[in-house]
Every structure is written in structure tokens, then in C-alpha cells.
């Protein structure tokens, strides 16, 4: 028997029991739908985070005290400005190294007060991070050397404090100390939930005096190219370990950050897909069940077909194609609904959803495989029926 004939027969058999076929497909539809949507959401989240990391700038190495890893406790920093100078010597190009001191502080203008992230840094920050200015200027060497009380506001801080007014040259009060606004950053969004538009940048020396600690939280190095990242990272960490044999230092690159976060999010996506896969499996069990009922109901028909010359493989093929047809039609419907659902989620909610071709191909492949896997047992049963007994069945 030709495959085309078997296909026609299978379509006919599914048409005869329309409601039953539709309900059986529903199990597969829901499973595939869940896989497509959940993978789209997982992938969307991963893409969004990766975009945020890439938005920091390119080829950045972050040097922080202690061990960096998921679940590691934040470590009290031992680094100070002399260490920054040391790292600058190790790197060779001082302009490729910048520094950060962070503290949450209230920022006030008149009666308006906002809570901002105060970041003490230096004139080299723009060489390492992508931080375009909307207005005014960045920090200068003199600002840092003479501990000037000047500030560059993040876009959101500027908007809240000054509204439509131009903040350049005006006064803000940070932790009770007056600063002069010299610049405003462009809106750049957030990274890892850190709202970077809520930052206020001041000279690192000024920040240390304000906070009362001579420490720095981290050193950032801009490598000149992707190939330079790894050797530079190793050189800096080795140099710091040589200087402080009892201390731990970590240098994190964007690539590592992307790798770590990407792995976590991929795992998350995988777990979501696996959970959805379970419902696909349940759908497959439903297909198997219904196929067994079908074989039982059609025992006489199977007996007749065998008497008329159907071979075991003809009968097996007929029922297997029926099962695969059930799951692949269910799969296609599930994919269409899943893609539609993902687009809807994308459009109507802040959850990012990204449809990937591999998830669609996988969903289709898996649903076809489910049909084969769960169809084989009933189809074999049908194929092996003894025609004499089958013909007598009622």
C-alpha cells in the first residue's frame, strides 16, 4: 500500500470521529503551545539581559575584591586609590582604567528630594563605559585631583529634580553637601535591575570624603580588543594577588558575565520547556489511549482488511500514520497558537518574548515523535491481530 493511500485513510478515520480527534489533539496542542510560549519567554529574557550587558560598553573587565560568583556574599573592599594607581601601572595605559565608589544617598534641590546611587569615579570613565552626555561635560582631572564638588546627573535624577529646567550650573545637595551640576547623561536604561539613570557621578576623591571611607568598590578596565581581554585580566589579577597575597580578587569580563547569566537563563528556559514537555507527554498518552480504543472499535475492519490482503505492515502503517497525523496537526495548531500567544505577550506585557526557529522546529519534531512513540503500541496491536478472531469480533 502506498503512503498516500494510508494518509487518505487516516484523514478519513480522523474525520469520522471529529470530536474525539479534536479532543485528543487538544492535549498535544496545549503541550506544544506551552513549549513554544515558555521557550519564547525564556529566550526573550536572555536576549534582554544580554543586550543590557552589551550596552555597558565593549571589552570591559571589572576588578572587584573577593570571589565573584552566584550566591557569593559581597566582600568588604580592601582596595583604595593607591591600588588603582598600581593597576594603572600594570595595565600600562592609565586612561583605560577607571574606578567606582558607590553609595546610596539622598539628592535634594529645594524641597524636592530623590534617592540616587552616588558613584564616585574619575575622568577616564567615558574611555571604558558607554555613557554619552546629553548636556554639559564629564569629570576632568582637576575635578578629581582637587576634590571638586561637581556632579553629573543621570537622566532620571535630572528630570525629577529639575523638570524642564536646564540643570547645568545649578546646585544640588547630596547627603547634606552642596554640589554644582556640570553635566547630564543620556537615558540608558538599567542593567541587572540597577537603574543607571538614577545615578549621580561625582569625583571619586569627593565621594570618598563624603562617605568617610578611603576605599573603592571596583576598578574597571577597558581592553583595546576582544583578544586582549583574557591576558589583561590574568595580568591584573596576578598583580593584585602578588600585592595582597592574603586577599581574593576577581576580574569579571562581559563575556564571562554573559556566559554565566546566559547559562542560568538557558537552564531556566530548559526547565520551563521541560515542564511544558511533560504536558506534551501527557498529550501523547492521550493519543495512545485513543488509538487503542480505535483499534478495539475497528477490530472487525482490521480483520476484513487482512482477509482482503492487507499485510501486517499495511495495518501498522495505517494506524501509525493516524497517530502521527493527530499529533502533527495538533503540533501545527499548537505552534500557531504559541507564536500568536508569544507575540501577544510581547505586545501587551513588559515580558519580552522571542520566538526562535529551533523551538518551533523542535516542537514540531517532538510532536511527530510523540505520535510515532505513542502510536507504535496500538498500531502494532492492530497489525498483529489474528484475522480469524478479528473478523468474529463484534
Amino acid at each position, binding site marked *: 500500500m*502506498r503512503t498516500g493511500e494510508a494518509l487518505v485513510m487516516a484523514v478519513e478515520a480522523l474525520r469520522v470521529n471529529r470530536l474525539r480527534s479534536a479532543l485528543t489533539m487538544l492535549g498535544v496542542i496545549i503541550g506544544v503551545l506551552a513549549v513554544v510560549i515558555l521557550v519564547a519567554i525564556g529566550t526573550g529574557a536572555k536576549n534582554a539581559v544580554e543586550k543590557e550587558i552589551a550596552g555597558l560598553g565593549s571589552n570591559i573587565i571589572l576588578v572587584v575584591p573577593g570571589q565573584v560568583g552566584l550566591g557569593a556574599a559581597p566582600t568588604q573592599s580592601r582596595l583604595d586609590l593607591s591600588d588603582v594607581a598600581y593597576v594603572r601601572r600594570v595595565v600600562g595605559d592609565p586612561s583605560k582604567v577607571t574606578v567606582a565608589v558607590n553609595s546610596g544617598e539622598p539628592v535634594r534641590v529645594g524641597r524636592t528630594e530623590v534617592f540616587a546611587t552616588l558613584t564616585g569615579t574619575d575622568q577616564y570613565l567615558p574611555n571604558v563605559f558607554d555613557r554619552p552626555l546629553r548636556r554639559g561635560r564629564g569629570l576632568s582631572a582637576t575635578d578629581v585631583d582637587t576634590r571638586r564638588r561637581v556632579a553629573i546627573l543621570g537622566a532620571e535624577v535630572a528630570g525629577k529634580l529639575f523638570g524642564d529646567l536646564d540643570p547645568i550650573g545649578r546646585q544640588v545637595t547630596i547627603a547634606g553637601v552642596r554640589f554644582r551640576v556640570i553635566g547630564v547623561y543620556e537615558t540608558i536604561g538599567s542593567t541587572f535591575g540597577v537603574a543607571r539613570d538614577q545615578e549621580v557621578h561625582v569625583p571619586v576623591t569627593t565621594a570618598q570624603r563624603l562617605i568617610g571611607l578611603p576605599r573603592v568598590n571596583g576598578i574597571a578596565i577597558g581592553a583595546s580588543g576582544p583578544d586582549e581581554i583574557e591576558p589583561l585580566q590574568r595580568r591584573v589579577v596576578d598583580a593584585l594577588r602578588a600585592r595582597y597575597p592574603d586577599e581574593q580578587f576577581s576580574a569579571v569580563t562581559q563575556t564571562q558575565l554573559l556566559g554565566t547569566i546566559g547559562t542560568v537563563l538557558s537552564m531556566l528556559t530548559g526547565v520551563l520547556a521541560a515542564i511544558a514537555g511533560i504536558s506534551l507527554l501527557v498529550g501523547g498518552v492521550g493519543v495512545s489511549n485513543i488509538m487503542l480504543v480505535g483499534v478495539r472499535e475497528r477490530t472487525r*475492519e482490521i480483520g476484513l482488511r487482512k482477509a482482503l*490482503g*492487507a499485510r501486517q505492515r499495511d495495518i501498522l502503517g495505517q494506524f501509525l500514520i493516524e497517530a502521527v497525523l493527530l499529533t502533527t496537526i495538533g503540533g501545527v495548531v499548537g505552534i500557531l497558537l504559541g507564536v500568536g500567544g508569544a507575540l501577544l505577550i510581547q505586545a501587551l506585557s513588559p515580558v519580552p518574548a522571542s520566538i526562535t526557529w529551533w523551538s518551533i522546529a523542535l516542537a514540531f519534531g517532538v510532536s511527530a515523535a510523540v505520535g510515532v512513540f505513542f502510536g507504535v503500541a496500538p498500531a502494532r496491536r492492530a497489525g498483529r491481530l*489474528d484475522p480469524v478472531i478479528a473478523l468474529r469480533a463484534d
Partner: protein
Amino acid sequence: MTVPVTAMPDDGATSAFEAVDLRRSYQLDGVSVEALRGVTLTIGQGEFVAVVGPSGSGKSTLMHLLGCLDRPTSGVLRVGGVDVATLDDTRLAELRNEAIGFVFQSFHLLARTSALDNVALPLVYRGVSRQERRARARAALEAVGLGHRMGHRPSQMSGGEQQRVAIARALVGDPRVVLADEPTGNLDTRNGEEVMGLLEHLNAERGVAVVLVTHDGEVAERARRQIHVRDGLVELDTGAPAADGEAR
């Protein structure tokens, strides 16, 4: 299958069935029950034979063996000269498809399928193209006088008509022999008469051997040869062909 197969003379083409000491036993709750206890018979090409016997006599078992739906426990069965013991299940299915046409008491038509497609069904398993299948099915339906009913479904036809569709289906593959199991059992006298007339006509016109299984003496009377089966043995064979009909 335990009986050694001897070299066959070239009479394979002249006999539709050749059974030698055919036995079939079933296991029922661990007890072996012999339904056929050694049947030896030959049915020639173009014969019209009735297998008669009360229920439980083994005539259905004999028909299943002759129809290659079942295999003997021992003994030799040749269908068209081919020893069925040498065939695997696939080849046996192909032999059924090519050599044998079935007519059943309860018609066994596919309910949601037109008369034409019901008749064409055996050709599907022969790999015949759709176009040719339809042409041959049409011709077969015309031969049984149902040329005007091709698009009808079984439920839209009378019992007699349904059985004629089944006969057309049995004939469409040009078999060597038609096995009819109580073909008139579910029909009234008039329709039964019609079906019998059709089988006789096809036997005479086309030379198709007809083996009729029945417990109805009146129906059996119409066959030229009657084989009476009782307790799994041939009790009486009214007209075994002279050439190879001698009891062994």
C-alpha cells in the same frame, strides 16, 4: 508442517486447493481441542463446492485454513499449487489478496465508504493505481448488477445489495477461488436466491471456483459437489474429481 513436502507434480495449475491430512487444534484453557482431525481433499479449478456440516463440525476452521487466514497445526495445504507452510505472513497476505475472494455472512463492508471504494479495497493492497482501481471496481459492480449503486453507502442499500457488493469485492482481484461463508445466512429467501444465482453465474461464466460453506441443506443442494464435515473429519464427499480425488 511436520509432514515432509514432496516434490509436486505439475498439476498445481489445475487444483485450487489441495489438502493432505490437514489438522488444526486449539489450546483452550490448557486443553488441546482438535477442530480438524485430518482432512484430505482436492478442489479443482472452476469447481462449485459446498462444505456442509453442523455448527462445531470444523467447517469454519476448514474455511479459515483454505482462505489462508489461519495455518494448519499439521498437514499440507497447497493453494494454487503453493504450499502455504513455505510462506511467511506477508506472502500469505499477498496470496490471499491475489488468489482468494471472500464473501461473509455479515457482508463486512466498510460502513462509511461507498460501494465503489468498498469493492476497490483489495486492489489498494495490491498497489494498483486509484484510476485503475476505480475502473475495475466499476466493472465488478456492473457484473453483479449494481452499476447504478456505485456511490451508495452500505447503509443505503438492502441486505441483498450489500451482499452483491461483497461479491463484487471478492471478484475485483480476479481470484482463483471465491470462499463464501454462509453467504445467504443473513438474507431472506428471495435475496438469498439472487445471491446464489449470482455465484452460480460467476462460476459458470468466469470459471472462478466457488467454495460455499453452509449448514443450509437447500443451499448446499445447488452445488455440484458437496463435502460433508463432521467432528473434524470429511464424512462424505459426493464428487471428488476422478483425477486426484481418491481418498488416501
